């Protein structure tokens, strides 16, 4: 009996064991083989890093720095509380901050989570030694984007952010990963494909503690291409200083090429903030009432005011409806259609020709001129000058502005176009909305003799010039442009001109002020112009939101800037 039980017991037991072996090793062998490979093979990403962004003289505005961070491997840290306690003491950080960062950064048990960053090198070396024996705590090097000038040029540079879910889906084939940073605005976004480096990786064999035992393969990461901007860092700094705490923008452009030497928008932001773990600053930027992330130069749309009189004048001269000697009387107001349209000067300017009207920025003259020229001509020349269309600048999110037409008004407002709309339009009020960059280019057309340039801010990529911006010759007569230049000269230099505050000693310039009435309070202040008067090289634009009437604020800014510009240029040459 015993023998029978024993024999059959052993037989059954070993049959089960052998069939189990057969199942594990033969049937599921391939499956377990894969599992064992997953156990010991890891791909360690070696992040590529972005190309630098430099000014036109090669000065670095955005670069990279080596930084140290602490990463936690979730599945290797047994006692999280004591590890965090230890780290908190060593780093001088609140334990709650570490735990919060861990919670936010956690993706999967096998993915390292960054809990602290920007650790000084000496400390990092010390910590690396200290935590060698603590499994799951890693002191890692990382290459981080850095913007040494912080807020300077921030709107041009843009900022980086982590890929959104949607972007990740689309960009996965281009080597982006879950945590990849991508340009979200500015040059960082527009030139993302050039700036981005390619990630490399290392195929490594690890043991049960995740320690690397062997390197089986390596693909080196690459660095992105350097982008050289057209900006001049010195001029940019000066312009930012001049604009100060005002809301507005300053731009300076080469009238022949469309290269922007200065592009300032304020309020601005510090792009470094977007690379830090602290999200409160980012949410401040996103929610602040004055929209610091918004590049007013290309995204802002504003009423233009008196500067538009140059368009009305062009339309009159080109269409033949008016000549430079055409005179209208300004008694300080204009009665039309049962309404009284005012001039900014209560007592009126009296009889004036077109040149005088521009010099004095007389509204009444242009009310009458506009009616004579007709909305059709005005809109058509505004369009020729590039208003109402994107300039094609190499920055994302450029706005179009709005050139109102009767069709537009009927469609959007449900009303027909009244002659009163033409009256408003001829002095740049009413429905018209422009972006500062459009206005600057329009001034450049006057200054350079009729060439519509494409404004741009990237000069070269990694030494290769991006010079494909051929200006387009416009069908505006030279005499017209010459007349406008002369009128703008008078604005600054005539004893009765509205832009006298911008007058410089030694250098002749042309300019035009504007006071743009708007629903948000005080009028916006504009001052645009070109310099030098003979053979102009730059066009400039100064704009302050709610800066008040008469363009005084902006004309003063222009003067201060241009003095610096010409001194600076003398030095440079």
């Amino acid at each position, binding site marked *: 009996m015993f023998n029978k039980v024993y024999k059959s017991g052993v037989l059954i037991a070993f049959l089960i064991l052998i069939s189990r*072996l057969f199942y594990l090793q033969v049937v599921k062998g391939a499956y377990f083989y894969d599992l064992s490979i997953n156990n010991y093979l890891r791909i360690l990403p070696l992040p590529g890093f972005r190309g630098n962004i430099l000014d036109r003289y090669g000065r670095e505005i955005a670069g990279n720095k080596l930084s140290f961070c602490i990463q936690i491997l979730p599945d290797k840290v047994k006692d999280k509380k004591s590890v965090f306690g230890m780290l908190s003491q060593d780093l001088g950080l609140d334990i709650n901050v570490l735990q919060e960062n861990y919670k936010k950064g956690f993706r999967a048990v096998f993915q390292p989570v960054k809990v602290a960053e920007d650790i000084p090198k000496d400390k990092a070396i010390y910590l690396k030694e200290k935590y060698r024996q603590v499994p799951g705590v890693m002191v890692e090097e990382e290459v981080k984007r850095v913007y040494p000038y912080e807020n300077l040029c921030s709107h041009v540079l843009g900022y980086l952010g982590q890929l959104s879910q949607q972007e990740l889906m689309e960009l996965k084939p281009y080597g982006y990963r879950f945590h990849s940073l991508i340009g979200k605005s500015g040059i960082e976004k527009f030139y993302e494909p050039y700036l981005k480096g390619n990630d490399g990786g290392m195929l490594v064999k690890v043991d049960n503690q995740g320690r690397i035992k062997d390197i089986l393969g390596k693909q080196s990461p690459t660095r992105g291409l350097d982008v050289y901007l057209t900006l001049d860092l010195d001029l940019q700094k000066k312009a930012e200083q001049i604009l100060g705490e005002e809301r507005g923008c300053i731009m300076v452009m080469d009238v022949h090429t469309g290269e922007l030497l200065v592009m300032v928008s304020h309020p601005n932001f510090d792009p470094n903030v977007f690379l830090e773990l602290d999200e409160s600053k980012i949410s401040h930027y996103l929610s602040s009432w004055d929209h610091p992330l918004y590049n007013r130069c290309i995204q802002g749309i504003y009423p233009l005011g008196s500067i538009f009189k140059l368009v009305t004048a062009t339309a009159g001269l080109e269409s033949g409806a008016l000549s430079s000697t055409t005179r209208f009387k300004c008694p300080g107001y204009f009665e039309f259609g049962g309404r009284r349209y005012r001039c900014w000067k209560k007592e009126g300017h009296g009889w004036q020709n077109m040149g005088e009207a521009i010099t004095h920025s007389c509204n009444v003259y242009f009310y009458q001129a506009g009616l004579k020229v007709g909305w059709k001509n005005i809109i058509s020349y505004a369009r020729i000058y590039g208003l109402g269309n994107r300039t094609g600048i190499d920055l994302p999110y450029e706005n179009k502005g709005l050139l109102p037409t009767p069709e537009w008004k009927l469609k959007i407002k449900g009303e027909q176009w009244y002659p009163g709309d033409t009256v408003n339009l001829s002095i740049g009020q009413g429905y018209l909305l422009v972006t500062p960059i459009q206005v600057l280019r329009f001034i450049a057309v006057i200054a350079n003799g009729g060439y519509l340039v494409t404004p741009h801010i990237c000069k070269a990529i990694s030494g290769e010039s991006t010079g494909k911006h051929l200006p387009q010759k416009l069908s505006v007569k030279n005499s017209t442009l010459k007349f406008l230049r002369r009128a703008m000269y008078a604005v600054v230099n005539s004893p009765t001109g509205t832009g006298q505050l911008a007058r410089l000693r030694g250098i002749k310039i042309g300019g035009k002020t504007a006071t743009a009435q708007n629903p948000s309070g005080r009028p916006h202040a504009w001052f645009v112009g070109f310099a030098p008067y003979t053979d102009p090289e730059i066009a400039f634009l100064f704009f302050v939101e709610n800066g008040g009437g008469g363009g005084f604020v902006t004309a003063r800014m222009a003067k201060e800037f241009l003095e610096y510009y010409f001194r600076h240029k003398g030095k440079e040459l």
Partner: protein
Amino acid sequence: MKIKVDWSTFILVGVIFLIGLLNLYSASYNLAKYLVWKQLLWFVFGIIIGLGVYVVGTNRILHLAPVIYIFSLFLLLIVLVLPYPGAHRWLRFGFFNFQPSQLMKIALPLFLISVFSHRGFTTVFSFVPPILSALIPAILIAQEPDLGGALLLFIPLFAFFLLRRVSFKKLFVWIFVGLVFIPVIYAHLQPYQKKRLTTFLNPHSDPLGSGYTIMQSKIAIGSGGITGKGWLRGVQGQLRFLPESHTDFVFPVFAEEWGFTGAVFVLVLYILLLWRLFIIANRIKLQPVREFLLLLLVIFTAQIVINLGMTMGLLPVVGLPLPFFSYGGSDLVTNVVLIALFQGAWREK
């Protein structure tokens, strides 16, 4: 003195041990290569003791049963009261440690056979003395804590009742009593032991904790495939994903490196050895000696089957080494002595 040995047993044990050493070399390759030499040393030590046992003779040893049993119980008590940190499994003698629970594996069958063989088990209560003689050391061993070692003692007890041809009805009464006490036993288990049992029922419940071992063990065995990865090439063992890869989980290391072919070969060697020992035991005319050997054989068999079953995820992880394969001095010496007891009986036949 007449010298008579069963050579096929010797050869089988020798081959298994050599393969085990080769495998131990691989299992301890990244851990401590000297383990192979220590294991060899223990083997030699076991042979010396085994020679003594052989010379004394199994029959004479049977007469010493009560003394040996009491002595083993005493050692189990000693090991519990000694103030060592951690588990109380070993008597520590500086350069070598000894596990009294191993001695009990021989002492209990000895005691059962020599003391209770001639009793009739006609009433339910007549079962009590043999049960107590297994239960007392089992409780002591469980305190060490060593659940596997404790449970192992009930196997010769069961076999003993089978040999006595007791009535199944009465035996089942006691088995039923045992089952009733399972919750009580479970309540007294260490947390890690409970976890081992629950993870056996669901290995994925805690993939980084105690289910980890079972998972890694199955990965090791399975990834060996048909032909294996080759000696010293097993990833699971070499990169230490597999815990206890030189002791309880030494078989997966072998199965990973030698595949289904190698694993079945070793299983066949064990079957041959068990078969041979079974034949030897049955050829002994002297009933107490024969039955003693059979009980030893049952323990030996159970240990092999439980260890293999545990590494393959068929049984919970209870911590029993694989005879002649796992590293471990006391176990190896005990197994050599066990073989010597068979040889001793063979000589006296």
